[in-house]
């Protein structure tokens, strides 16, 4: 009996031990699976938050840059521009009465003042185009195309497939900056002879299609330091809650499609 009991103990121990180890293994696995999931989600969340943070930094940056630009342009126009204009007016009061030398001085001063006014205008115009808020995006884009075509730099065309509403100032300014950057890029790097801009508005929003027949580029540079300007464009589009698609490769020109969700402002 003793031996048999011992046997049973042994086998009992064996079976129990095996079962215990089996359950232990199961527990380890269970813990592992749960823990891994939690850690992974945590990491995902952190990465998300970082992206959002970077994005908001960038957006804040863009907005503050634009605010500053507006301030500078406005101050230029209001303060310096107005002083020049007023000077002109005041000087004009002198015109009739004087002797020739003084008349000469007056004329000379007039010319200087005119130059000053022109200069302020040009600088202010380069910072923010004056007609953008008043006459709208389409008008300003037309002006860009006209200026390029007239200067015979290249052939630029704007086409509106559908009537285009006026939008919120931020959207119009943002899109203007994007087109400004795109045209600058085309002029600087693409050696193109033609630019086409196409606008269309439907329920999806405002569609802007920009293409040039220049050198194109490798879309891969978006992820390299050289693609910073392009990333800026994407950031601006992102700020407007829109989307942009690059369709280009070296030797095949550039085509981009931008969609901005809009509801017209008026």
């Amino acid at each position, binding site marked *: 009996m003793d031996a048999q009991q011992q046997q049973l103990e042994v086998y009992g121990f064996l079976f129990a031990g095996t079962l215990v180890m089996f359950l232990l293994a199961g527990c380890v696995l269970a813990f592992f699976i749960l823990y891994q999931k939690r850690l992974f989600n945590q990491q995902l969340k952190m990465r998300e938050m970082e992206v959002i943070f970077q994005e908001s930094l960038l957006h804040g940056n863009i907005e503050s840059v634009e605010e500053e630009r507006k301030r500078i342009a406005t101050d230029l126009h209001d303060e310096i521009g107005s002083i020049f204009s*007023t000077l002109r*007016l005041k000087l004009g009061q002198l015109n009739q009465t004087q002797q020739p030398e003084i008349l000469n001085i007056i004329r000379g001063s007039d010319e200087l003042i005119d130059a000053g006014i022109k200069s302020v205008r040009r600088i202010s115009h380069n910072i923010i185009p004056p007609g953008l*808020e*008043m006459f709208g995006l389409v*008008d300003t884009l037309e002006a860009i195309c006209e200026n390029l075509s007239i200067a015979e730099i290249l052939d630029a065309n704007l086409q509106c497939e559908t009537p285009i509403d006026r939008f919120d100032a931020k959207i119009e300014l943002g899109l203007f900056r994007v087109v400004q950057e795109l045209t600058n890029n085309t002029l600087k790097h693409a050696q193109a002879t033609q630019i086409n801009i196409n606008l269309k508005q439907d329920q999806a929003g405002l569609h802007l299609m920009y293409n040039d027949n220049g050198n194109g580029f490798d879309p891969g540079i978006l992820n390299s330091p050289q693609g910073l300007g392009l990333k800026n464009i994407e950031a601006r589009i992102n700020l407007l809650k829109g989307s942009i698609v690059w369709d280009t490769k070296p030797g095949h020109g550039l085509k981009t499609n931008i969609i901005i969700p809009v509801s017209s402002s008026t």
Partner: protein
Amino acid sequence: MSENNIIKIAIAEDQRLFRACLIPILNDFEHLRVILEASNGRELLQKMETTTEAPDVIIMDLSMPEMDGLETTQQVKARFPNAKIIILSVHSEERHIVKMVGMGINGYLVKNSELEEVRLAIESVHSKGFYFNDAILKAIQTGMRRQKQKNFVIETSLTGREKEILQLICQELTTQEIAERLFISVRTVDGHRNNLLEKTGSRNTAGLVLYAIKNSLIEFEV
């Protein structure tokens, strides 16, 4: 036509310095009187609503805060159709001038104009309904040539007489002078003028000039 009556002027200009300088200068002229000043479009409209004397001519800047020149022009044309508008702006973009004339302004001046020209413009706009100097006309012409694709004026057939009158209007003759030239009555001239306005879809004389340029009925050699 001599100005027996005083021309009543309103000024909408956000640059305070400029405004403060311009008003006494204008008031110096005997036949001009500034009755109203505002620093932006909204203020202008408010004051025009409440004033007792309506201004004949409004001198307005394009870029003003709160309500810019474009919107203000639209509002003024709607609520005070008799007032004449002269835009006085630093900018002289061709396309914008063309657009503003299309909106119904009567004259366009750049801010560094001579004082004499400002006076002339006010008088012209008051008596003949438009004033554009040579440079502005050239700009309009160039601007319209480029916009040939967008015809916002329907091609119409004008009678020979109407074309004649249009020519004379563009040559800045007053109604009286036109009547004398063509040996017809002033009323007839006015009648033709109204027909012209209707047929060409113009809001005022300035629009007629625009139409004439666009359809190459007249060429301004500059």
